[in-house]
């Protein structure tokens, strides 16, 4: 599965287990509007660390918090490359 699809699938799965409704996932969707709370994001990042074997937040590769879903995906795509 591509990095993008893995991320989208993880968002959906976490929203499902947290009983939350996810907004339609698009490039410009602001992460804080997607329907997940902070804990949900924390779980997404933890799950992606397991499936993609990378935690881009734990390196010096990032300097700004991702604001949109597109930013978030790019951060992972760069980390996996």
């Amino acid at each position: 599965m591509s990095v993008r699809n893995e991320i989208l699938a993880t968002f959906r799965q976490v929203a499902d287990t947290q009983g939350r409704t996810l907004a339609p996932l698009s490039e410009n969707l602001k992460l804080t509007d997607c329907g997940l709370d902070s804990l949900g994001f924390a779980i997404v990042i933890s799950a992606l660390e397991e499936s993609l074997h990378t935690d881009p937040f734990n390196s010096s590769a990032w300097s700004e918090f991702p604001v949109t879903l597109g930013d978030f995906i790019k951060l992972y795509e760069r980390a996996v490359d």
Partner: protein
Amino acid sequence: MKSLWDAAAVHGGTIAGELVGPGGAIKLSALSTGSTLPGELEALRGLSVLVATAEQLPTALALLELDGVVRRMVLCTPDLTDQQLAAVASTAQADAILVSKSSHALASKCARPIVLQPLAVAAPAERRVSERTEWVLLTSGTTGAPKLVVHTLHSLAGSLPRQSAAGDHVWSTFYDIRRYGGLQIYLRALLSGSSLVLTTTAEPTRDFLGRAAAARVTHISGTSSHWRRALMSGAADRINPQYVRLSGEIADQDILDSLRSAYPKSRIAHAFASTEAGLAFEVNDGLAGFPETFISQQASASPARVNLNVVDRTLRIRSQGAAARYLGEESTRLADEDGFIDTGDIVQLVNDRYFFRGRRGGVINVGGMKVYPEEVEAVLNADARVHMSLVHGRRNPITGSIVVADVVLSDHSGTLGEAESAEAERVKGELMNACRQALPAHKVPARLRLVSALEVTAAGKLVRPDG
């Protein structure tokens, strides 16, 4: 003896400032001629009450009226389960429970329910002080039942500035005022005659920041996790605070730098406080950790309000802001014989500076909320298929830490082969469901691994990684 009302009131017995909720601002001066407990306040004199409203605003008003009148008030957080609320009512020997809606069916099972009015209703309000009210805060314990921590107005607010020229300050906090970090901000605002902007349940961060901006917030506090979320909201630039404060969680250099670049003109401070030990110190140099001089250069002359010490790698605090005791656990001592409270926070000295390295005993801090691993392990171990489990924290860029669990099944041969992996996934799913049923979301493991063994000490105890 002064009550919060007396301490906050200016000449003429009125209180300056406003409490700002999503529905608008409530002038505190309305309490000079009215009450949110019309006709009920005198009946509560000398009693023990739970304040258990869903939103913060009714509690914020009620605390002002109750201090000095009731013997004890317990600030209930909105995440309590019915069972926990009943346990708290019993431990606190509650005579009455203040709620915001009459439909609160459970309340009547705990104690006499009294419905708080959302706004002060015109009523003769005699503000007579007869009690040194106990302020009881709830904090997590190793079991599912919260611990009740007894403070007084003096221990909570003794060191806060009073009626300074702070009338032009507007405070806000991402915290709930029923937790220690939020209560400090509530008291700061009231005692300095400032207004306070409160969050509401499930309010999107962007909306809250929008309200804070509209109210021209000048001073704002939150945990590192709150601030990360604010920075991710894309709306952090709506506010332009003079003062940005972090507490309740380790403030690492990343979050301090991110806030510095978001708010280049603000004073950015991180504070160390705990519900039991009170506020210990504030660090203003923009660097993570705290200077070694906080420990080595303490004034030995005048009795300091706060003394710090490091013993066995953990930070110890002796403070006039410390809680008096745990309610219902009178045998559990808060402080050692010299008056120091062990915070359980591990610190390490690196080049003249102490850095926080997590918590002893494996206590996990998820976004400012304590999680005792034993509580989660008890839920896992209740499943007959579980032989043993180890719950610990894992570093996380959003909430500081998250909860993860390693589980050894009674018959773990079944989890090792490829062919049985579907069965293993099914067991994992069922264990996760059991946790979701029994625990609030932040205590549910984000990740559960089946392992073949866990490390055990010679004394037969699980080896717990620190922090």
